[in-house]
């Protein structure tokens, strides 16, 4: 068998007073790599071991402050920059209302960092394969004895000398501690690879199932399928099957003015354009024409619809027929519709309709511009310096 490597020597003592005295002697003898093991912390041991005060508090301080800072900055960003919203009349940066969460995050980060920092950074835990663990010595010190261990790595380590020292100090038992045999686990074992594979399939499968199947099953789909009617949905409740209800007969909407020529073919003689042809009204008319009329009639009224045959193409608005129509008749067509062209009375107001009519006139004139029109434009652009 291989020669075992020595970790160090340990000695047990049976009263708190003895161990304190022993530790004082050992630390003043100049041993550095020694440790004391007691079932509970003993008063005065820090001094006897000549330990410096614990620096753990710095971790707490740094993380506590960063918790506070993070919370404040994050809430500031979320509530005043990313998605500003006035809530309860408070300012976007409502400091008093941010204090509770800032406090909680400070405490959370401070405590977690203290504990995790202590266990990993200060103690290098977990360390279940430490040579002392599992020894008789450890069993005694975790019950009711007090022990000292001196590591073989200490510069002054000398087996015979230390044994003599321990017995002079009144130890009840000395034990030599060895490093445990190191076990090695080859990485590419068949079993291990199989295990990894199974884990991969399991996690992959579960994730797929949860995200793609489970979340669409009851009860997870209850948010999506609710017992309410979405617009356009069929209703089982009403006998006509319509989910959306029509107003009672004779209901009049606010601001509604009845159109007295509804259904007539040519009431144009009664309707005359009340709007002056100003630049402003033409631009307004252009905007409305592009919004409501251009999908079918095309941007310039040529009848080149953008609907790709989903609706019959209308005739051009530059025909003689339309050119010769009085303003009132175009107005009437918008209001009343014509054959398959639907009425636009609910989408547009009276002024908008007249503005559209004016814009159609502009389009017609532009398409059939005369020589004098062109000269007029040239003059105008010269005056504008173009």
């Amino acid at each position, binding site marked *: 068998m291989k020669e075992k490597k020595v970790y160090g020597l340990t000695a047990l003592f049976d009263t*708190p*007073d003895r161990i*304190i*005295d022993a530790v004082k002697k050992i630390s003043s003898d100049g041993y550095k790599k020694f*440790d*004391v*093991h*007691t*079932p*509970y*912390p*003993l*008063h*005065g041991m820090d001094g*006897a*071991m000549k*330990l410096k005060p*614990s620096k*753990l508090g710095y971790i*707490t301080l740094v993380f506590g402050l960063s918790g506070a800072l993070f919370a404040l900055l*994050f809430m500031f960003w*979320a*509530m005043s920059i*990313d*998605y500003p919203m006035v*809530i*309860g009349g408070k300012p976007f940066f*409502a400091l008093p*209302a*941010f204090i*509770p*969460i800032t*406090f*909680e*995050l400070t*405490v*959370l980060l*401070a*405590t*977690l960092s203290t*504990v995790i920092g*202590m*266990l990993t950074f200060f*103690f290098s*835990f*977990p*360390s*279940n*394969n430490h040579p*002392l*663990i599992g020894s008789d010595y*450890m*069993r005694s*010190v*975790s*019950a*009711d004895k007090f022990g000292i261990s001196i590591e073989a790595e200490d510069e002054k380590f000398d087996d015979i000398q230390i044994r003599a020292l321990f017995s002079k100090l009144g130890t009840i038992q000395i034990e030599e501690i060895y490093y445990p045999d190191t076990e090695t686990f080859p990485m590419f074992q068949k079993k291990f690879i199989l295990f990894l594979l199974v884990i991969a399939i399991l996690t992959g499968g579960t994730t797929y199932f949860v995200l793609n199947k489970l979340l669409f099953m009851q*009860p997870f789909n*209850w*948010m999506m399928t609710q017992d309410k009617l979405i617009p356009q949905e069929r209703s089982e409740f009403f006998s006509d099957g319509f989910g959306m209800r029509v107003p009672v007969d004779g209901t009049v909407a606010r601001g509604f003015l009845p159109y007295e020529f509804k259904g007539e073919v040519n009431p144009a003689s009664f309707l005359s354009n009340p709007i002056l042809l100003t630049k402003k009204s033409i631009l307004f008319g252009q905007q409305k024409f592009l919004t409501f009329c251009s999908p079918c009639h095309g941007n310039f009224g040529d009848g080149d619809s953008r609907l790709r045959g989903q609706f019959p193409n209308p005739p051009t608005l530059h025909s003689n027929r339309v050119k010769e129509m009085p303003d009132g008749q175009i107005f009437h067509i918008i209001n009343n519709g014509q054959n398959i062209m639907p009425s636009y009375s609910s989408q547009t107001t009276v002024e908008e309709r007249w503005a559209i009519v004016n814009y159609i006139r502009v389009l017609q004139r532009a398409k059939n511009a005369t020589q004098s029109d062109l000269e007029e434009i040239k003059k105008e652009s010269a005056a504008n310096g173009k």
Partner: protein
Amino acid sequence: MNIDYTIEAPVVEGRLTLGDIERLVAAPMESKPDKKFYIALSISGTFLLIGAVLLAMSFYKGVGLWGNNQPVGWGFPIVNFVFWVGIGHAGTLISAILFLLRQKWRTGIARFAEAMTIFAVMCAGVFPIIHTGRPWLAGYLMPYPNQHGLWVNFTSPLVWDVFAVSTYFTVSLVFWYIGLIPDFAVMRDRTTAKIRKTIYSIFSLGWRNSHRNWQHYEKAYMLLAGFATPLVLSVHTIVSFDFAVSIVPGWHTTIFPPYFVAGAIFSGFAMVVTVLIFVRKIFDLEKIITLNHLEKMTKVILATGLMVGYAYGMEFFIAWYSGVQVEQFVFINRAFGPYAWAYWIMVSCNVIIPQLFWIKKIRRSIPAMLVIVILVNVGMWFERFVITVTSLHRDFLPSSWGYYTPTIYDIGILLGSFGLFFTLVILFTKALPVVSISEIKAVAEGAQPNHGGAH
């Protein structure tokens, strides 16, 4: 712990040696569970099951099964939430505040009280989540980057609650675990059974009782206690904000935070005493959890009970003094309205009956103590009921007044939460040391060097 305790009655009675202490505390974990254990477990398990079934039905059918409706939308779930969070507060008070105040007697009961904190907060956490009716959407409470580009409303007390309660739970759990590490090491070194040894080894993380570790450990314990103290005060303060930040008459008062915190400690201590009375008897821990400890706790109950009584009186005074009509109405309605029965149960259980603790004989008599603390628990539950329900059932608009009656589902789920709590407590007594072995050893007689550093 590195603390200069004043001289007082010994914390551990009967001159136990360190070995005796360890044996006593470890006994429940090393013996097979007996009949009593199974009986207790099956009773609490039954309650838990009742609660679970009724809860499942509530999820399936919807929360319409409960009594909550307009105008009382908060009903039982919120009453139970506040009640359980309050119970939790005693544990942190004992483990952190009494630690900072260098109260040596806390060692016998701290571990247990901390465990109760954790279990109570678990019970509490259930209620706000189920109250929404769609507990699987509770994740929305956390701020996380989402497609909507929305964040939670950080200025809402309900979101503060989420942060406060989850921080409280995490910190309590960590604090508890830190205290348990040395005890896991003790158990690891005591047992020979292979599986248990492995489990204890894993949780002990390789603790070696090294003084180089103890030094940092004590520092960490101190720091944690220092953080847990303001934390525990903040938690019930924030819970009280759920009410106080609204404008509902009877809720909109500045006295709420201290009033809630005092009430929480009051009810928490009552619960700790209730459970400890049984635990010390069943597990022969009378020498470690002594009558002196219980007596000290009854004193705390008496003191906090007086604070709660003061708050009740002050609420009435302020209602009158403020001259606000609805406020005055709400308080008169509390005492003489349709919920007067609940109000007077609350007053008698919380203010009148605990006055018996002025008498030393009663403070030292276990049966009398048990009756009183149970009544205090009842009274404190009713306090939350009175606050929540009486304010809501008749507020500003008389046209929408109503009377709230809980349904069988409400009551069953409340019983279920008790079932959950006691099931966890019972399992805990068998699985982990109910008293901190290393702490109690440190305060036993002759455990510390008697010449200390002055040698």
